[in-house]
């Protein structure tokens, strides 16, 4: 009798296991799960999910300060961040909508929904445009859909103001590009809008909020014979020796949809009037698109020019010319002032330089050099070799790496260099990423 009871227990146990439907092995992939959010985030997320219409998706702007879907901004200046989201629907008239959520205690609650315009949220910034301590929502919309290849220059800019309950549109403008800066240096944000109608008109207008509405500070007409502005940068464009700086806008324009040539304009405001400070625009004409930016960290935007090295001006095929990137700043009058110079390989996308300032106009590339194979940098006066760049295949590189130092690596190519002059060849490459050198090459670099 006792023995029998012993046998019943495991049998019953096994039966219970089987019947409880506990299938023993399941596909592990079926068990994957999106990680949970923290309770606070989850509550906000579920509120947002509950409030957005069906068949809508939360979207990011194409240009904005961060990559978040949910933006936390203190719109009503009460010290607690509100959450702002945008979503798109398949509605024909107005595809973009925004929502604002407010946190009271531990719970989030929707405050309001507001409409956007068009079909694409091009840009989104949160800035105090009215100088009342409240952030405004600055959003740029466009109507283009994905299958349209032609870039539409006409976008709509809307500035929304949130008063704690409702959202009000305080400005609506058509625009091509816009920047928020302080052109008239009154320590209040102003808005500069570029409105380009290709071949017809090209206006640059600066607006500022004053007494309940935006007023036009000034309007400048530019030549409309450009294709588009591919880069618009706002910031300091000049500083004199006493440290007085000039704020401005740098516009990099490409001239045609097919070619790569580009020019740059610098716009500043003097005595409340907008002014283009480089009267001769062709002095910035370049064969390729390059970006104006602050390359040396002095806070002033540099304008890059592409200069063929001495002796290369007569080469017909532009692709063969080992162009130097020469960076200039506005000289405060109507000209440009040299800052720095480097070699850049377009095809393989690497930098060599910057060259030391004393070598400016004194360094060139031996015309027997060939891009993609071997380049010899020589001094123009003495003809002495200053540096060499050689393109290796991986097997060639493995055979000898003692003579040549590692510069860069691309698919299937290793670029090595030699130099007889003291300058930092890695300057720009290093800025891009400190860890981009593959691990096998680290030793070489450390031993430099």
């Amino acid at each position, binding site marked *: 009798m006792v023995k029998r009871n012993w046998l019943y227990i495991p049998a019953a146990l096994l039966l219970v296991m089987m019947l409880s439907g506990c299938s023993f092995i399941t596909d592990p992939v079926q068990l994957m799960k999106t990680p949970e959010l923290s309770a606070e985030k989850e509550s906000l*997320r579920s509120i947002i999910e509950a409030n957005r219409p069906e068949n809508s998706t939360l979207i990011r702007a194409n240009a904005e300060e961060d990559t978040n879907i949910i933006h936390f901004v203190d719109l009503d200046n009460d010290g607690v961040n509100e959450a702002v989201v945008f979503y798109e629907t398949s509605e024909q008239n107005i595809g973009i909508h925004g929502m604002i959520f407010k946190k009271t205690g531990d719970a989030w609650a929707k405050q309001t929904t507001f409409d956007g315009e068009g079909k694409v949220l091009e840009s989104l910034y949160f800035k105090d445009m009215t100088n009342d301590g409240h952030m405004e929502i600055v959003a740029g919309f466009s109507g283009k859909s994905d299958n349209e290849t032609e870039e539409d220059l006409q976008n709509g800019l809307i500035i929304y103001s949130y008063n704690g309950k409702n959202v009000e549109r305080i400005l609506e403008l058509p625009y091509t590009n816009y920047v928020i800066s302080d052109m008239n240096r009154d320590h209040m944000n102003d808005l500069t809008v570029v409105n380009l109608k290709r071949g017809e008109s090209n206006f640059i207008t600066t607006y500022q909020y004053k007494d309940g509405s935006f007023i036009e500070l000034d309007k400048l007409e530019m030549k409309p014979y450009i294709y588009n502005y591919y880069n618009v940068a706002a910031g300091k464009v000049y500083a004199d020796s006493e440290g007085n700086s000039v704020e401005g806008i740098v516009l990099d324009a490409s001239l045609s949809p097919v070619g790569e040539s580009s020019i740059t304009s610098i716009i500043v405001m003097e005595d409340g009037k907008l002014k283009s400070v480089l009267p001769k625009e062709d002095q910035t004409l370049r064969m390729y698109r390059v970006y104006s930016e602050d390359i040396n960290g002095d806070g002033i935007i540099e304008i890059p020019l592409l200069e063929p090295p001495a002796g290369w001006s007569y080469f017909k095929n532009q692709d063969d010319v080992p162009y130097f990137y020469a960076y200039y700043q506005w000289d405060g009058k109507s000209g440009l002032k040299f800052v720095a110079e480097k070699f850049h390989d377009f095809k393989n996308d690497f930098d060599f330089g910057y060259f030391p300032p004393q070598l400016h106009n004194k360094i060139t590339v031996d015309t027997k050099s060939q891009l993609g194979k071997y380049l010899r940098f020589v001094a123009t006066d003495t003809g002495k070799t200053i540096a060499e760049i050689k393109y290796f295949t991986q097997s060639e590189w493995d055979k000898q790496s003692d003579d040549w130092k590692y510069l860069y690596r691309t698919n299937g190519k290793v670029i090595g260099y030699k130099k007889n002059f003291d300058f930092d060849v890695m300057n720009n490459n290093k800025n891009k990423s400190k860890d981009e050198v593959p691990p096998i090459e680290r030793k070489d670099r450390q031993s430099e």
Partner: protein
Amino acid sequence: MIKKGIRRQIVMHYFIVVFSTLLLAEVIFLLAIRSYYYDSIYSHIKQHITLMEEYQKFITTSDDGRTDLTNLLSNYKLKFTELQILNPQGDVLINSSEFQPDVSIKTSDISQAQSGNIGRWVGRQPITGEDVMAVSKMEQTNGQDAYIVRYVTSLERVNEKLLNVTLLATGVAAAVLALVLAFSLGLANSIVKPLNTITAISAQMAKGKFNVRIKGDYKYELGELASTLNYMAQEIVRSNQVKDDFISSISHELRTPLTSIKGWSETINSGGYDPEETKIGMEIITKETERLIGLVEEILDFSKLQQNEMKVVFGRVDLKELLQEIMLNLWTKAEKRSIQLRLDSVDKPLVEGDANRLKQVFLNLVDNAIKFSHENSFIDLQVTFEGNNVVVQVHDTGIGISEDHLVKVKDRFFQVDPLNGGTGLGLAISQQLVELHHGILLIQSELGVGTTIVVRLPRLLEEETAVQAQETQMQLPEGSRNE
């Protein structure tokens, strides 16, 4: 709890062996299943990354070289994971969840990805405390590290599953253990119960109850133990019986001459010492007294042999001469029953031994042969060499011994017919004496046909004898001196 004993020991042994085996198997099984689950998820993500890498090759990045994060995010997206895209330094650029991570990511998968491998990290999310797996890989554009894709997936359900599997496995193990314990208890009982029974019965035997027997059909060693005990009890009973028989027969043996002695002394005493009568009486008294002395000496011999106090003086003995002597000694006894003694011997059957003792052995054997032979028969004494042995056979055609009695005739005090006179010690003493001489005594017999007694003694070779003879000349036994 089972009380101390074999039962507990068996159960414990089983328990320990099965438990450790199960434990080992479970641990290996669980580790294997855990790595199966984790590896499957890892390879699923890895496969997705590889697939998307191939796909990504066909997507031209925008001409200014700046990667479109949103597109990357939607391209690499994988169901049930959170996708993050990090720059090569490990800062999150964009992630698929609605929120940016609150703290920077410093898990080991990032550093593995930075060194060019596919990074894998299993751990706990800092804020939610959720178990997650992160898989990271550095993606390159144009040979240069461009960005890291990092997938994070929750392992909560996997771990829950693993817990279930663990519980199930533990349950099964417990069940197996219980089953094994039940079996081992059964096994232990099958050993312990008979042992207890046997112990109880042998305790009874120890108290003198030799008529109890161990009943039950036990197997193997237990069966042997039981039957051995039973046999022991039976043997004790039998030897008691033999002893009782001996006492009754010895008292009878002792009483017969004593009665005769007493009778004659009374007759002489009351008869007025008639010289003729007194002479006959005294002769009979002397004879009976000799018989008594012989009887007592036999018993003494036996008791000496029993206590290993028998002293033998070894010398060279010629068995042929010894047997001739015996034939002379027993001639009259044989003649009375018209029995003829015949000797057939090889030359010089020498053995090393005590001549008196050996004579005693063969006297006894031949005397027995005469005693149990029919009248007008022959008794053959045969001496042969057999290898290094001398073999003496005493063959008669007498009444023989039945098979049942054959095994017992060499026992002390055993007599086929206790009323026949004698002590029942003769053969037992002969046997022990032969063994003392490093020989063997065998009995072959068939009831009604006759008996052959074979004595095999180690042969003494001629050369050895010569040397030994000189050395032991002084101690030569009587039998040898007659040569």
